[in-house]
């Protein structure tokens, strides 16, 4: 009996999480005429017209490309810098490291609205407005606190002896890092990289203010600004939403174990 209740509760929780997506997918497949009426709930026929429309009428492909470039670029940069810093803080243990870590955590609490106006002016002055490079730079800073924190935790989880042994064997710090620590940190790197990718893919406010044309616009901004002058095309918005979220959803599901490790490592420290 109790088992049944638990399963029921879980089913409800899962349904609650998934139902809006299911409805959105359904909406994206409904012919236009059926979208303007509510009963019936299920469409008589399915259509891919909305998916075609978003790539034909709107530069959606370009938006996806931009998002991929920016998110991947951010992930790579944040991982590189974060892994180095995390390794140094966890293994080399310099004095003042707790202050540094506290500072890093504090940075992660920065509300984007607080830095968006100065960044807007700074990025403009540097000539990086409406450029993917500008976004990658800003996003890296946005994601670094998370990356540094997570990599520090992951490196802490690797026994010191392995590092010491490598040094004793004659490796330089960089060598030990590259040959011994990095391979062992792959789960941590994956988890961190995924989280940073998802974070960068989903970011909205900086993308909204630091880009002004399709050349650098990312998917979330495209979805938010979808209605053009004279349309609220629910079918196309739904199709856009499905396409926009497919990459991160697939990543999250495929690598869910890693993602969960990352999420919990950030918070639950023994």
């Amino acid at each position: 009996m109790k088992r049944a209740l638990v399963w029921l509760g879980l089913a409800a929780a899962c349904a609650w999480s998934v139902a809006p997506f299911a409805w959105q997918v359904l909406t994206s497949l409904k012919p236009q005429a059926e979208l303007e009426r509510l009963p019936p709930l299920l469409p008589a026929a399915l259509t891919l017209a909305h998916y075609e429309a978003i790539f034909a009428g709107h530069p959606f492909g370009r938006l996806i490309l931009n998002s991929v470039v920016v998110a991947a670029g951010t992930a790579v940069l944040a991982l590189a810098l974060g892994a180095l810093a995390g390794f140094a803080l966890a293994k080399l243990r310099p004095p003042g490291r707790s202050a540094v870590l506290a500072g890093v955590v504090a940075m992660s609490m920065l509300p984007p609205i607080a830095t968006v106006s100065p960044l807007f002016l700074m990025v403009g002055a540097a000539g990086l407005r409406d450029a993917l490079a500008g976004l990658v730079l800003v996003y890296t800073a946005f994601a670094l606190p998370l990356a540094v924190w997570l990599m520090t935790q992951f490196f802490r989880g690797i026994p010191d002896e392995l590092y010491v042994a490598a040094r004793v064997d004659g490796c330089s710090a960089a060598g030990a890092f590259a040959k011994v620590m990095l391979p062992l940190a792959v789960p941590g790197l994956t988890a961190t990289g995924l989280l940073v990718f998802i974070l960068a893919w989903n970011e909205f406010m900086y993308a909204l203010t630091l880009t002004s044309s399709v050349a650098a616009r990312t998917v979330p901004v495209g979805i938010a600004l979808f209605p053009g002058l004279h349309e609220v095309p629910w079918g196309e918005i739904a199709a856009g939403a499905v396409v926009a979220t497919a990459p991160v959803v697939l990543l999250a599901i495929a690598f869910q174990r890693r993602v969960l490790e990352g999420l919990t490592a950030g918070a639950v420290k023994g």
Partner: protein
Amino acid sequence: MRRAEWVGPRVRSGVVHALAALCLGALLAGCGPREVSTGHEVVVFRHPKLFGDPAALERLFAEFERESGIRVRSETLPSASDEQHLFYAINLQAGSREFDVFALDVIWVAEFARAGWLVDLTALVPDADREDLFPGPLAAVTWNRRIYALPWFVDAGLLYYRKDLLDKHGLAPPATWQALVDAARVVTGREPGLYGFVWQGKQYEGLVCNALEFVRGQGGDLPASDAARDASLRGLAFMRALVIDGVAPPFVTTLTEEPARVIFGQGRALFLRNWPYAWQLLARDGSPVQGKIGVAALPHAPGQPAAATLGGWQLGVNVHSARPAAAARVAAFLASARAQKALALAYGYAPPRRSLYRDPALARAQPFLASLREIFETARPRPVSPHYVALSQVLQSELSGVLTGERAPAAAVRAIDRAHRELERR
């Protein structure tokens, strides 16, 4: 590193006046294509994407290039008005020369003029033209008695109605607001599932347009002058009463242009307030209301003039442009009767010149447009102020407050007046 941005708007506009006058003087002195015969000068024109096949615009530019030797490069912007505003403001403030001529929403002209970003184009509008233009757009592009942009397209609020339903119940299209309310009550009482009147009540710029039509239709205005205060209060009370009495559905506070148009287009509403663009969508093949709808000027209180809110686009010249003379010629060309007629025929965009409405070719090809002349004649712009964007934020929230019942009309009017006074002081 960018050079200093602040040469003082007054000083700069003075210098620009002189420069513009010089260039235009040289032009108007019958010089013709002298300075451009050596090569093709390229002028960059930024505008929102036009609603239709871009080929017609390109053809127009090709003709212009043949005549003047100036090539126009057309660059489009996303259609969201806020985005365009931000784009222009940021680039113009930074002294960008990347575009020469650009299209402005009717509400930005005073702001851009005061900021010193627009070339004074008064010389391009001789008296003959001035008399040909509708007064509304002319007022919107005038700042400190000088003209800073050329009216390009005009737009105004209209009343769409279900002709078939009104005929069925023996009613005429309403000329007064009270008549509209009465008609709505009669018809919705007898036709189940029909909304009376749908319009744009969401908290956004469109609400300001709609609310001004209610308020001005009573003889009031926002911000309210003392003389017109009572009328303004009546207008706001009327707006709120539409929802309380069920003439407008409560969710009118979530409607923008398209959602309202869709409801009417599905046959679920008796009256719709919207812009002229909706006509094509409502009257086309496959529309459930094809052949059943009519269009009229918005109602007003008895004895008061009609008061549709003005929309539309204007052409401005970037004060930092490297080719102000050529840019001015392009702007003048686009604003000329010939170009506007071509664009009206191709895109159905309404020209701001009276004379074109008497043109038989236009009347034949775009009869709907031609029928709107009276409405454009009396269309009134929103408050012409450099601080309009900030004022609009206050207007939007106060009007939304009145509409949802959170604010009493008197308090709203006071708040709007106070904000207006404070902004004008800055």
